[in-house]
């Protein structure tokens, strides 16, 4: 057992922490209030080489591991969970399917641009009628002229309208369920790909989430990722490592909330002394600290197993479930420590509560995580 971070991981943490404090922190409130997609921050992150973290160096990436990726997402999410979410979706479910399942030509075509941030990626699985039950999606890919034509509607697509690449799951055998699904790499400027208006949401403001409509959208045979019928497995594998990123996002939210609560409790005086000296506040802070720590270990464990090439589905689901529930609890508790001030949008506490809720829902609701975990448990 070696639970220490490597020199490289520590260096990434130093680099990203500096980036987050210098660039993300001052912009976070503005991004939320204006609901503005933070292109400037994405560009700055790209300059630092943070958009291709798990892309191999041979394809222009940093060739780092998932522990480093989790650290990156956490540090950004401490200040802006929506910015972290954009970067996470791009680097994880948007890019990794190509790293894992792409042929040489697909890798050469997409990865260098994704790794340098010239292009942004999105992942399109969910549909209006196929949420947790993703195997029954309806978007259809029909063979035509040696390629395919895609028709259907995707919903809740992060980076919609901003991305230049959509990793789209569609069925090539309608009615065949999971066995019929294939994955396609669809360029953002493809005729027939239309993005709906950006949703107004409870939180994660700044993150572009919308419907994506595919209307006779033509793609080539060479745009199919993996084999026909392999798409569901590709999607599930992408979501397994995607959950590491969501866990890290939740941990960042929780750690940011905890740090602010600690600072506030030390300064805020009531009954003649800092509220940090009241046991009820101390108990809250202690429980919050323990939960963040446990969530981080679980996330790093899932990441380390992934990097070691070992099964990590159950660990990633447990980390996602635990970390996002912890983030919800902790952001609410931190708001409570701030009292009335926490309820004001002048402080980041309210925003973190709004942002944390999304983490319990997307990339598999926490109810779906429990289904995944229970399945693995009963199988064991």
């Amino acid at each position, binding site marked *: *057992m*070696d*639970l*220490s*971070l*490597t020199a490289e*991981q520590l260096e990434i943490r130093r680099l990203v922490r500096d980036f987050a404090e210098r660039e993300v922190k001052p912009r976070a409130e503005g991004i939320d209030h204006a609901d503005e997609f933070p292109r400037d921050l994405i560009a700055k992150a790209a300059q630092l080489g943070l958009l291709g973290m798990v892309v191999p160096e041979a394809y222009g990436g940093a060739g780092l591991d998932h*522990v480093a990726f989790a650290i990156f997402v956490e540090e950004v999410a401490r200040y802006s969970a929506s910015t972290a979410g954009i970067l996470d979706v791009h680097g994880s479910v948007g890019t990794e399917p190509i790293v894992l399942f792409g042929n040489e030509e697909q890798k050469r075509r997409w990865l260098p641009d994704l790794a340098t941030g010239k292009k942004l990626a999105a992942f399109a699985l969910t549909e209006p009628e196929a949420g947790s039950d993703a195997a029954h999606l309806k978007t259809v890919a029909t063979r035509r002229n040696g390629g395919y034509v895609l028709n259907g509607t995707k919903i809740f697509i992060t980076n919609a309208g901003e991305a230049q690449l959509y990793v789209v799951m569609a069925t090539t055998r309608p009615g065949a369920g999971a066995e019929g699904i294939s994955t396609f790499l669809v360029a953002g400027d493809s005729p027939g790909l239309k993005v709906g208006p950006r949703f107004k949401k409870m939180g994660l403001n700044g993150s572009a989430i919308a419907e994506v409509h595919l209307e006779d959208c033509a793609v080539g045979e060479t745009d199919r990722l993996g084999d026909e019928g392999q798409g569901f497995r590709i999607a599930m594998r992408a979501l397994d490592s995607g959950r590491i990123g969501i866990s890290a996002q939740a941990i960042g939210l929780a750690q940011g909330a905890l*740090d602010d609560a*600690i*600072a506030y*409790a*030390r300064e805020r005086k009531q009954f003649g002394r800092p509220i*940090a000296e009241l*046991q009820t*506040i*101390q*108990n809250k*802070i*202690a*429980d919050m*600290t*323990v*939960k963040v*720590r*446990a*969530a981080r*270990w*679980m996330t*790093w*464990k899932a*990441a*380390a*197993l992934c990097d*070691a090439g070992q099964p990590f589905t159950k*660990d990633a689901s*447990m980390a996602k*479930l*635990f970390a996002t529930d912890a983030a919800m609890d902790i952001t609410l508790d931190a708001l409570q420590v701030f009292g009335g001030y926490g309820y004001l949008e002048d402080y980041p506490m309210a925003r973190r509560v709004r942002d944390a809720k999304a983490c319990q829902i997307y990339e598999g609701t926490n*109810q779906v*995580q*429990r*289904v995944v*975990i*229970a399945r693995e*448990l*009963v199988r064991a």
Partner: protein
Amino acid sequence: MDFSLNDEQRQIQETVHDLCLERVEPRAPEIDESGEFPWDIKELFAKHDILAIPFTPEYGGVSGSALTLVIAVEEISKFCVTSSLILSVQSLGSLPIWLAGSETQKRHYLPPLARGEQLAAYALTEPGSGSDAGGMRTRAIKHGNTYVINGSKTFITGGSVADTLVVFARTDQDGDTPARNISAFIVEKTMPGFKVGKLEKKLGIRGSPTAQLFFEDLAVPAANRLGNEGEGFKLAMRVLDHSRPGIAAQALGIAEGAFDLARRYARDRRQFGKPIAEFQGIQFMLADMATQIEAARALTYAAGDALDRQLPEISVSSSMAKLFASDTAMRVTTDAVQILGGYGYLRDFPAERMMRDAKITQIYEGTNEIQRFVIAREVFKEKA
């Protein structure tokens, strides 16, 4: 980052698991029912070098790694918490000697403990001094080369079966004011003036004797003092930093044992024409139990690893592991009883025993309220 166990740890884990499955699990209900200290299990553990795990080879042991000890305690606790306490208390009682003893003291006292020929205990708590060590009344007064100790201790795990005990006593002369000067002494049960009082009747861990101890003009050679006068309180706290991951491991083991039982039962038990494991209400309970256990394990192993690597955050990581794992054990065992339904409530099944045993892990070696206090203090300190 690597969360896997090394070969030594895996081997000890397997050995302990197999031994406990075969020899300890069948004894667990009897030990609970009779409330008697299981001398046969103690002999079994001594014979298989399990009691030697807390000690390094130079003092007759086989490991000395905190993480390895955590893993052994976890395995035993899956089957019988009372039995795990034999190992935990052997470690707890010898830790002060290991941490603060002179070379002579270590060479004299540790090898018989490592061989399991003798048992150790740790005597800190008093009727008026639980979480607050300042209330200590037991007093040691120096006369020449001897300390004369008078007073009493309570809640001493293994106090009635131990041969070698580390006793904390105040060495100040300040009457009944809060104790300022506390020292630690190695006491042998054969020393005149050492008396065992009544054994407590308890909710759980019934085969682990919890004793009152009385010291009546107990004469202890000055050579048996651990460290300098006045260093006892700091030593007591350091010992607890080292021992709390062991309580976390115990709690983790109980939770895992209860979870395994609930999972097996849910697969076998049929209602409405199918195993209850196929109902989402049960599945989600099992998923939450397993996730909490995974979180507890991460914190517990990390605390063991922090001790082995001597990281500066030992105190807070130990407290976190103890707090979270013991709260997890309480929740998981309660849910396990629930999944077993009416059968869970019966003495015929081990679920209710596990639930009773789990409760103590939230209380001893610092109540969970004290752990929160320790954690908050550290958090507010480090961010200042």
